[in-house]
């Protein structure tokens, strides 16, 4: 979707994770926060449910051991400083799972799957130092969390592959955009119209990454509907309207000089985006969130036919978002397969189901105009997006 108004949130999908470099270091076990249980729940007889009272000076865990399997630490900050809670591996270094930014008085869950072994629990009031540590033992129960000694390598490989994908897509985006801009400036509208959805495909495949640059995105991908009063409209959709003015009332075509201004501006911003993506790095969380985020984009902007209001080339964007989401998923599959095989299988099937429906809308090398897609087909596409997006929203927790 291309609303400035929506930009900051899109950027958020990437931003918060930048701080969790430690996770990248080696999530041998799955850890995530999960507050499905109410903080008000009383003590539980479940030996895998533990509570932690974290004060400024103390870290009181309700037990020192648990059977292997899925453990939940319900951490309440009873102190006055921001606190953090960690489960560390027996070496006291590797972070198995963590919850951060627990404000005073706030309760948050750490849910993770722990195999048998020796660990440390640690609270870190004020977010400084080594934390208040205590030994913690997980006993073999037969419900092991699978460990995979290769996880670290798999994570590194997934990150490197995704960074490479982003670089490749921005390379293609830049060259196609330059080609598009040249045709448009030269007044070759037919060529420009043909190149428009092709160039944008490379944008849409990495849309969540592109949107993370909050300064560039509104200049490049803002839709007219999202303009503020008095705001100057530039970028892809400004040119789109000039190339497909049929739905505009009383539209006045841009002059050659105006065309040059908008086209040059788009190329300049694309170059900036290109430069910034050269040395980007990613975490598994970012890749997984980005994958889900691309499906959100489909659901909110493409299925509804809002994104390409003038050109009606929404299906190109639709496919490109799905491409990008699938690349993210595929890259994480080696990790996911050992963590949650059922989810892996389900996501694979749902991606295929959606692709089957998209394939039915193909026309020549590209796609039908969105106007030519029947209501029932749009509903079927929308249902398939929901069917995929719901399990896809579980990916981050499963791989991080």
């Amino acid at each position, binding site marked *: 979707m291309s*609303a*400035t*108004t*929506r930009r*900051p*949130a*899109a950027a*958020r*999908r990437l931003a*918060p994770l*930048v*701080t969790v470099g430690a996770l990248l270091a080696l999530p041998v076990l799955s850890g995530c*926060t*999960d*507050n499905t249980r*109410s*903080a*008000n729940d009383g003590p539980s007889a479940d030996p895998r449910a533990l509570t932690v009272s974290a004060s400024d000076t103390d870290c009181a865990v309700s037990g020192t051991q648990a059977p292997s399997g899925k453990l939940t630490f319900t951490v309440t*900050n009873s102190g006055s400083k*921001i606190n*953090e809670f960690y489960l560390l591996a027996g070496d006291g270094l590797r972070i198995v799972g963590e919850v*951060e*930014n627990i*404000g*005073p*008085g*706030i*309760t948050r869950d750490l849910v993770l799957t722990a195999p048998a072994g020796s660990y440390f629990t640690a609270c870190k009031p004020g*977010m400084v130092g080594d934390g208040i540590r205590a030994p913690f033992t997980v006993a073999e129960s037969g419900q092991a969390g699978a460990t995979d000694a290769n996880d670290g390598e798999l994570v590194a490989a997934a990150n490197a592959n995704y960074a490479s994908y982003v670089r490749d897509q921005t390379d293609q985006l830049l060259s196609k955009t330059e080609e598009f801009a040249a045709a448009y400036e030269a007044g070759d509208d037919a060529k420009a119209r043909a190149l428009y959805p092709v160039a944008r495909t490379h944008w849409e495949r990495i849309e969540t990454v592109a949107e993370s640059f909050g300064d560039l995105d509104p200049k490049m991908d803002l839709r007219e*509907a*999202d*303009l*503020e*009063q008095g*705001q100057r409209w530039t970028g892809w959709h400004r040119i789109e309207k000039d190339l497909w003015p049929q739905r505009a009332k009383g539209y006045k075509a841009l002059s050659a000089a105006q065309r040059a201004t908008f086209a040059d501006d788009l190329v300049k911003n694309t170059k900036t985006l290109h430069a910034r993506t050269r040395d980007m790095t990613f975490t598994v969380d970012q890749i997984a*969130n980005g994958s*889900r985020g691309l499906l*959100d984009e489909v*659901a*909110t902007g493409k*299925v*509804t036919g809002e994104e390409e209001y003038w050109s009606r080339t929404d299906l190109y964007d639709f496919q490109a978002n799905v491409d990008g989401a699938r690349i993210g998923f595929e890259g994480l599959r080696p990790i996911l397969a050992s963590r949650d095989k059922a989810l892996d299988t389900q996501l694979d099937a749902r991606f295929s189901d959606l692709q089957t429906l998209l394939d039915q809308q193909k026309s020549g090398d590209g796609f039908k105009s969105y106007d030519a897609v029947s*209501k029932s087909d*749009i*509903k079927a596409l*929308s*249902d398939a997006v*929901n069917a995929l*997006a*719901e399990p*896809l*929203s579980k990916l*981050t*927790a499963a791989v991080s």
Partner: protein
Amino acid sequence: MPEQSEPKVPAADPTPAPEGAGAVEPDARPRGRFSRRRALGAAGVGVAGTAVGLAGGIGVARASVEPPAPAGPKIYPFYGDHQAGITTPAQDRLHFAAFDVTTTDRAELVSLLQDWTTAAARMTQGEGAGEYGPTSGPYDAPPDDTGEAIGLPASGLTLTFGFGPSLFRESGRDRFGLAARQPAALKRLPLFPGDNLDESRSDGDLCVQACADDPQVAVHAIRNLARIAFGRAAIRWSQLGFGRTSSTSTSQATARNLFGFKDGTMNLKAEDPAGVDAHVWVPSGADPRAAWLSGGSYLVTRRINMTIETWDRQALSEQERVVGRTKAEGAPLSGGGEFSQPDFTMAGRGNEPIIATDAHVRLAHPDNNHGVQLLRRGYNFVDGSTGLGRLDAGLFFMAYVTDPRTHYIPLQTKLSRTDGLQEYLQHTGSALFAVPPGAKSGEHIGQALFA
């Protein structure tokens, strides 16, 4: 409290009972003028209810989280210095209607307001819309009340009326000789970034807000007022709301919106009369053209759709980041409880602010908006589903403010531009109304405007 926010509860009636006293079923009563209040009073149902008990009586729907309310009629006075339905503890249900005035005759417009006032004064007291009521009157004439509220108590019904900018001037035309009295602040709201407004859900010459704890009572009121208006005014759009999202009294727990979060924690409350005076009522002398509005207010309504399905797929961490509060308690992420002051400077991991820069609570908080506060009275709505099988749902936002130019437009401009929540919202309807002060007995609503 300037406004009569204390529910007036009929005391156990020591006077001679009306005919049929002791009859529990309304239809067991003899024919005669229908009064739902009297019916219940006569039946002796819940008349021991006290004002305190009733104020806490949030209704059956929330009986699981709040002590069950004593059964009994909850009745608010219609006449007073301010209109009821503003600082009145927010009822559970809403039917809001905007009207286009169809007559071009000023006298007919005035007669409509007179008739509405009379009917509203009756219905809010638990009586029928007309003189005879739903089952009485000439046998060869349709009843002057439509009847679906028979047997239902007043349910705290309030009816609140307002005037839209187009009543004063439309396309530059002074429709009713009121243009010279149009308040300077009463202008169509500007288009905010991301607005996707539907004209058929926006604006209006007149509005009526019906709030009650029973949806059928609220709908009954709008239906009868619309019927009375035929030929003089017609409904332009209307909106049902099924769950209050704001508390306007400290006696009420903070309700949740459809994002599942507590909404309106920082709302102005009736128990803060100084705040209400400063931020809700139009002071005398505020606008020399519009002295008639002194003691009134401005009502902003926004139909805000939520992309429910997308929201539901966001991690809890993302949901809390965007709102800036915990989902469980509504505590600011900087700590404490629901009503703790957020610490916007507190730094969390990586030296990033623990309440994100685009968190809703940061952007909307009075401390970051020159102390501006709103009296919000919004309701959750679900208008079925869309053609894509998604819930057509969200928040019907209503806020009463002393001046929209200082108390709404700057805030919404900022939120539309930078609020993280905006990712999951789309504003689809918008309107602004001037809400005149309350009528005194014998007057009609807005009488000073026509004087």
